[in-house]
């Protein structure tokens, strides 16, 4: 992968498969396409006839399917230099409603799956990503304006993070639960259980590593998620949906709603069938975070606030610890008498 950046200079073969040109490439293409015009795809140095890329229509990911927004709305996604990358669906309140319904429907099966099973599925996500590193590196590079190696490093870290969280599936219960030595003839056991449907505002700045860092800990324990990806850089997330759809992640376990964070989040924060809210993606906007937390109080959602100092940026490559796992777990304590 070290030669990744060179690829754009070579044949369009590999890059063409990624469906979406990397932003830098588009910007530097000989055509010098004007800002906000479609990237023209790659020009082969050997063949004068230009092949026109097949562009991908990005869609939402709800209940294991890839619908357009019911509102019919899209919004323009550009690279860091303002070049058009795609029209992303702009999810509506009703899309959010549908996503919550799908997430709720999936919760029983997913939370009831064995921890081993969930762990294997998250690991499978990592496997699938590994095979598509180049595509995601290109997308991340375009989305975040990163140089190739840095984008690749983000993707690698994200894949490793999926692996890391995959391994937690059958360990967090042991770490966070246990027997309690009550003063009486009772068996007493505390076990963490998933909270339910978690609305996740994924980080705005870290479109892929940040996403993995907030999504994996939510679902590995058996929660289902409705994710609002980075508003300005939703494409890596929407492409991740394709990986999730082919990684044995049951439909509805992860739902992705690109769009205006404020709009979608407001619906999710107020939704009475959402159990928890991760405000990572509202970290730079204290007012929004407060509004959403206030709305979440109506049914006492568990709210994971943005990290302190999130407005100045969060280092998503840091050791994540278990706090994001624990934030969306409920401790259930079961008593039973001990007697013959």
């Amino acid at each position: 992968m070290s030669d990744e950046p060179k690829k754009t200079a070579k044949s369009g073969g590999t890059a063409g498969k990624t469906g979406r040109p990397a932003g830098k490439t588009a910007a530097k293409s000989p055509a010098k396409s004007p800002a906000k015009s479609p990237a023209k795809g790659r020009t082969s140095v050997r063949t004068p006839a230009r092949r026109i890329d097949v562009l991908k229509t990005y869609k939402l990911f709800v209940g294991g399917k890839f619908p357009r927004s019911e509102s019919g709305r899209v919004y323009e996604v550009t690279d860091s230099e303002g070049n058009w990358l795609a029209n992303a669906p702009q999810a509506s309140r009703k899309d959010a409603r549908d996503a919550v319904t799908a997430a709720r429907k999936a919760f029983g099966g997913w939370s009831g799956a064995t921890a081993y099973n969930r762990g294997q599925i998250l690991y499978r996500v990592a496997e699938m990503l590994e095979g598509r590193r180049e595509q995601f590196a290109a997308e991340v590079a375009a989305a975040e304006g990163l140089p190739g190696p840095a984008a690749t490093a983000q993707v690698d870290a994200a894949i490793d993070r999926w692996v890391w969280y995959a391994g937690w599936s059958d360990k967090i219960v042991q770490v966070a639960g246990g027997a309690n030595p009550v003063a009486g003839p009772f068996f007493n056991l505390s076990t963490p259980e998933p909270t339910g449907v978690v609305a996740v505002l994924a980080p705005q700045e870290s479109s892929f590593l940040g996403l993995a860092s907030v999504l994996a800990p939510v679902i590995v324990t058996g929660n289902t998620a409705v994710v609002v990806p980075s508003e300005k850089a939703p494409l890596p997330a929407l492409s991740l949906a394709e990986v999730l759809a082919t990684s044995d992640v049951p439909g509805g376990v992860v739902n992705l709603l690109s769009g205006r964070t404020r709009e979608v989040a407001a619906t999710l924060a107020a939704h009475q069938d959402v159990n928890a809210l991760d405000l990572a993606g509202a970290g730079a906007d204290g007012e929004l975070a407060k509004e959403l937390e206030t709305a979440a109080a109506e049914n006492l959602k568990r709210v994971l606030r943005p990290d302190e100092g999130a407005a100045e940026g969060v280092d998503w490559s840091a050791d994540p610890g278990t706090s994001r796992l624990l934030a969306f777990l409920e401790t259930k304590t079961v008593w039973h008498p001990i007697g013959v």
Partner: protein
Amino acid sequence: MPDQIFEYAPAPESRAIVDIAPSYGLFIDGEFREAAGGKVFKTVSPATEEVLSEVAQADGEDVEAAVRAARAAFPGWSGLPGTERAKYIFRIARILQERARELAVLETLDNGKPIRETRDADLPLVAAHFFYYAGWADKLEHAGLGPDPRPLGVAGQVIPWNFPLLMLAWKIAPALATGNTVVLKPAETTPLSALFFADVCRQAGLPRGVVNIITGDGATGAALVAHPDIDKVAFTGSTAVGKAIARTVAGTRKKLTLELGGKGANIVFDDAPVDQAVEGIVNGIYFNQGQVCCAGSRLLVQESVQDELLDALKRRLRTLRVGDPMDKNTDVGAINSAEQLARIEELADSGEAEGAERWSAPCELPGNGYWFAPTLFTGVSQAHRIAREEIFGPVLSVLTFRTPDEAVAKANNTPYGLSAGIWTEKGSRILSMANKLRAGVVWANTFNKFDPTSPFGGYKESGFGREGGRHGLEAYLDVR
């Protein structure tokens, strides 16, 4: 002789063991002081409506003073080696044991709950809670909450009237063990045991300002949770107030834990140990006059054994002894306040109006005070208010189910998720039910058991965070 009836003569606990002063101030920075505004309110015994004492009504200025005292005490307290903090808390536990009878009598007078419960349940648990958390003070780095857990700062704590001293213990013990300082507001109707606890702190030599007790009403509590210089809010009480507090702290860095209402389902299968199930049902809803957030207020009984179970339950309810809480043989005491009694009456009336069948144990209720006979409703459906709303009184709603799946569906069909009970002799069914019930505490073949080592707290609108056990530490620590 066989014709004679075995009537238990009155067996009143002696009131002489407790000396209640005519008035109490606020306990701020290690001393009692009058409220800044000079206001006071009366606290009455709900069993007799006798005025027990007058206590200070804290306002914003007093909240300010208490938070300032707690803030000033924080560096010293959190800077103490854990071993030394532990010793203070152990002292408190021991003094509480020494003064247990006095405090039990006080609690019964102020709350209206039977002396049998304050003596045998509340006070032993209070002391045990301090004893348990005392031992954590110098072991926090071993609690599995990260290598360097740190205290948050000043904790603002607001507690309810149903278990005044026990709720105080649940709040103060972990807060102190983790190195926080506290400002605690007891409930308006039951301020006395917290004020006596201040005296326990004095006897223990606790540094001034580490524990501050401010008495008052809802406005006092609201001022406390809204104070900008507190780092932690812990509240136990109604879900409505809990939501208001959640809104108040939204957008701040205040860590929040809430332990709120419930509508617990107590599920009885046809193969239940029936005599113990009856005891569990009684304990589940008539313990503490049903004024328990985790009460088993919905009885879900398998339809095939409904008649048999209800016969046994009614027979048992006829033996409940309702009356003077100071009598050692009283099982069910007084409702805590006129306001609460009115709420219970209103909801019970709605049960009748909505078509459920009401049955009360025959008992003579005293003329003074606030009383409600142990009551059950049959023919209740999930649509009835008495099956959905927390009554917080000695009122049981009986519903039926046909299959385990139906029992789970009905049990979980509530915005609450605090407690549930399962009664069956089949082990695999217990474990399956326990997995599926969305409740923070599941009692199988028992009910309303508590222990300092056992985490307690709810799912969904019953709140978040856990009190008790290792888990209870997390609420008072910065674990990042």
